[in-house]
Every structure is written in C-alpha cells, then in structure tokens.
C-alpha cells in the first residue's frame, strides 16, 4: 500500500490539474509538496476529520500560489471530490487559482500576498487565549517576505509569545520576476527570524525526514518563542526541466511537456 500523502502522488495530481485546466503556477506548487505532505501526514490534527472543527490545527497557505498541491491533499482528506480536480479551472467550478477560504480545508484567501500570516497569527492568538493547545502552521513564500505585513505579523507574534505558531518559509529563491536575491534581497531569513524573537531553523525542504524532525522539535519547545522553519526548496522540484526555472511560474503545459513531466513522475 502506498504511503499517505505521497509527494510523488501529489505532484502527479498537480500536473493533472494543471494540464486539465491549462493553468500556471506549477513550479510554485512543486516546491512545497514535501512540506504539505509531512504536515498532513503526521502533524495536522483534525478531530473527526472535520476541516472546520473548533479544535483543529490551523494550516495557513499564505503563499496562495501553491494551492494546487494543497487541493491534492484536500482530496486525499476527502474534503473535495476528485471530480473537482478533474474539472479544475472550468467555468463555474469552485476551485480557483489561488487559495480561497470558501474551500473546505483552506483557512485563508491568499495570493494577494502578506494576508495569510497575519490571519494565522490571529488564529494562533485565539488558541492561546482559549488554552486549547491548537497549533498554527503558516506556509509563506520567500518572495512574500517582501510584504510589510509579514514583518508586522512577526513582531506581533513574538510580542504575544505565540509559541504555537510555526512559520514555514518555502524558500525556493524565486519570486514572480526573478530570483529573490536580484529582485529584493532577503539575506539570511533564519537570522532575520531569530532577530525578530523566533526560534528559527533551516532544513532541506524536500527531505521529509528532516522536515518531520524539525517540526517535532519546534512543536515540543514551548518556550514562548514563535517558531520559524526555513525550508530550502527548489522551484519546480520533481521535474527536471522545471527545476530552478522561473518560466514554470507562468508556462502552461502542452501535450509534449505534460507527457514528459508525467513520465518523470511515473519513474519517481
């Protein structure tokens, strides 16, 4: 029996969706596949498998551009039907090109960047005030860290001692127009998070065991500091001709590229 939330299966689902809907943002989704897989497989708690349950952990996809990978996970959770994936991007269908809070399992409407993290900070604060022990995981993009609201949210989270908040940066080194180092250099995000009062670690964002271990350690250390996991990732990870190539932020699949990419994923 194949493993739950298999990274390869998620990538295949993303590729199928992108092919069915002739959509962009494939590379944005591929970079955070292992992060989502590990979170859904072992860390996120949804009592009674209810995406709206009052005691659920919160998963904030602040980087809404990666939403296709989340849709694949939500289908595996049973919250959206396979048919919705098959008809992705059709007129009059519910799944949009960016994260949308009206979809079961999507907590925020994001993709206008810099929105999800502040909302997640509010949810983490609510859990703290109520003493419920709920965790809040917020997946953000490194390009998204250009937004001023992200830094406002970090200040607030540290000040309110939200150690139930884990900010996971999908550090794929790209933003819309090019490499982050060329567009708006961020320097060491780990150092910046540390300077803002976070417990910050960095790991290979495609190494599931490393992600798993880091998330366990961060969650266990309830010392008042909010947590940051800087996940070093590769944009377009999993398909050789998409990796580290920002054109796959925008490029749509044609029959040849779809077949070639799927063939690589079949062998993975």
């Amino acid at each position, binding site marked *: 029996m194949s493993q739950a939330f298999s990274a390869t299966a998620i990538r295949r689902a993303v590729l199928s969706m992108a092919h069915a809907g002739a959509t962009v943002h494939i590379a944005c989704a591929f970079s955070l596949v292992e992060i989502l897989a590990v979170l859904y497989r072992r860390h996120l708690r949804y009592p009674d498998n209810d995406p709206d349950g*009052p005691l659920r952990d919160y998963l904030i996809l602040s980087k809404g551009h990666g939403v296709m990978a989340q849709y694949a996970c939500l289908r595996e959770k049973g919250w959206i039907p396979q048919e919705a994936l098959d008809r992705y991007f059709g007129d009059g269908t519910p799944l949009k090109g960016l994260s949308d*809070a*009206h979809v079961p399992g999507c*907590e*925020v*409407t994001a993709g*206008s960047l*810099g*929105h999800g*993290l*502040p*909302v*997640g*900070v*509010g*949810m*983490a*604060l*609510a*859990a703290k*005030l*109520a003493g419920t022990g709920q965790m809040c995981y917020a997946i953000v993009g490194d390009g998204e860290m250009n937004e*001023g*609201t992200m830094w*406002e*949210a970090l*200040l*607030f989270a540290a*000040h309110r001692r939200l150690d139930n908040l884990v900010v996971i940066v999908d550090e794929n080194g790209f933003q819309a127009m090019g490499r982050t180092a060329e567009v708006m250099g961020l320097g060491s995000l780990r150092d910046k998070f540390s300077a803002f009062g976070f417990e910050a670690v960095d790991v290979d964002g495609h190494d599931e065991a490393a992600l798993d271990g880091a998330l366990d350690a961060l969650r266990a250390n309830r010392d008042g500091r909010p947590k940051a996991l800087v996940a070093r990732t590769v944009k377009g990870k999993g398909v050789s001709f998409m990796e580290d190539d920002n054109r796959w932020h925008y490029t749509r699949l044609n029959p040849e590229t779809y077949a070639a990419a799927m063939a690589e994923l079949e062998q993975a």
Partner: protein
Amino acid sequence: MRNAFSDAIVAAAKADPKVLLLTGDHGYALFDEFRRTCPDQFVNCGVAEQNMVGVAAGLAKAGLKPIVYGLACFVPIRTLEQIKLDVCYEELPVVFIGDGAGLVYSSLGSSHQSAEDIAALRAVPNIDILSPCDVHEMRYTLAHALRFERPVYVRMGKSDVGTVHAGPCAAPLGELLPVRTGGGTRDTAFIATGSMVRSAMDLAGSLEDNPVWSAPSIKPLHAGQIEALAREFDQLVVLEEHNRMGGLGGAVAEIVAGMRGPRAQVLRLGVDDRFSRFNGSWDYLRREHGIDPDALRARVLQSRSEGR
C-alpha cells in the same frame, strides 16, 4: 457621544469574554475605562494597522468577537484590502471603528483628514456602513454592530456638535430617521449624516421650515424610503462631512437616478473633491470646503435659482 461609545464597548466586553478590543496604538484616554475593567480583552497591536485587521480576522474565524479601533484614515483607508479580503469575503463578525472621520483632525493635515472612507467601503460587499450623528444614534448603531453578526464599520466623526434626537432611536437598520418634521413645505427635504445632521437642522430652520432626515446607516440604505421622498419633494439636499462623490449623496443619487417619472433633483453637499489647502481649525476647513452654515445656505439658494 464618545462616552456612549466607551460605555457600550465596556458593557459588551464585561458581558462576553469573547469580545476583544484591538487598537493600533490609538485611543489614549478613550479606552481608560476599558483597560481598567477588561485588561485581558484589550490588545494594543502597535503601529501596525494592516496586521491588526488580519489578526482580527483570525480571531473572528476562531470564534472571538473583535472590535478594531483606528483613525478613519487608517481604519478603513490604510487597511482597505485587509477589510475586503480577510474580513468581508468571509463575512466575519468584526466591528471596525473609524474615529475622527471627515475633517476632525483638521490641523494634522491631509494624512489624518478622511473624506473618502464611505466611498471606499461602499463598493466592498458584506459590510454595513454606519454613521451616527449623536449619542442616541451612537447607541443605536453600536447596538447593531455589537451583535457581531457580520462586518460593520462605525464612522465616528465630529462628536460635539450637539444632541439631535430627543430620545433613543428604534428603527430597522437602513431607514432614515426623521429629526425635523418641517412646516408642510414640499419643495426641499434634507437628508444628512454624522456631524452634518445638526447643520441640516439649522439650515432647514433658516429656509422654509423644511423637514430633515438623518441617515445613521449609509449601507444598507432603505431605497423605498428615499424613492418616496423623491416623489414627494422637488429637491433632496444631502449633506455629509465626506467627499461629495461616493458617500451618502452618491448613494441617494444612485437610487433616484433609477426612478421613472417625476422625481426630485438631488443636491449633494459635502467636502470638495480636493485636498485641504491650508492649516486650520475644523470650522476653518468647513469654510474652505464650503460646508459651513453660510456657504451651505448659499449653495441651496443658488441651486433653486438655477432650477427655476
């Protein structure tokens, strides 16, 4: 009026521990009582208004009842996208208080004057826009807002122009409230909101004893009531301490423009569509924008001479 605001939120917070007050480091004296009686429900979010609105959305999603306080130039203007996307899209129960709306912060200049807040929010779905004129309307609008059923914006403008209503207000939200019956003349009726209700009453008394309605709610707005007034009167004069575009006057004009047959002319009186030129008091800026009593009277009289 401001005491009524403080009393209402203190009472709401005492009655329900889920009520939280968020501020972007404003409200120094205004929240003394709240901080004294409900310190655990007071969250100073620092000078970071956009994050504050996002945090409020997250709190509301988790079942809490946030009141977000800021100056109108920041809440809703600086935070408009957060209000739209984080709060209104999901129709979350967040109450926004925009203080000092209009020309109240006169001498602080264009950064703090806010004559665009109603227009900006009117085009955002799922949010009620309320604009109380006195202590009674403050209690009436907050009674609605503090039920925490959906997003509500309460516009707090100039608050010391005097009491308008004789007693508590009671009407379905969206209705105009009669504040001056007038002497039976059918030429002009006044509709005003916020600080300008008092001005409208003075103006009506100095003309032909015209009736005046107050609009404590700009959205929703009872279209049928406005249409009836537009059929009954030759002219509707709308007054607000807001840009003449997109506010209450715009809302009334949109309704009247959709009518067939004889209908009133709509005269919109408000802040000019330009930034204030000079430093000055609230009274001075009202003159600069032509919404002081003398200028208002002259504009009404001129519109009539042009209409005949």
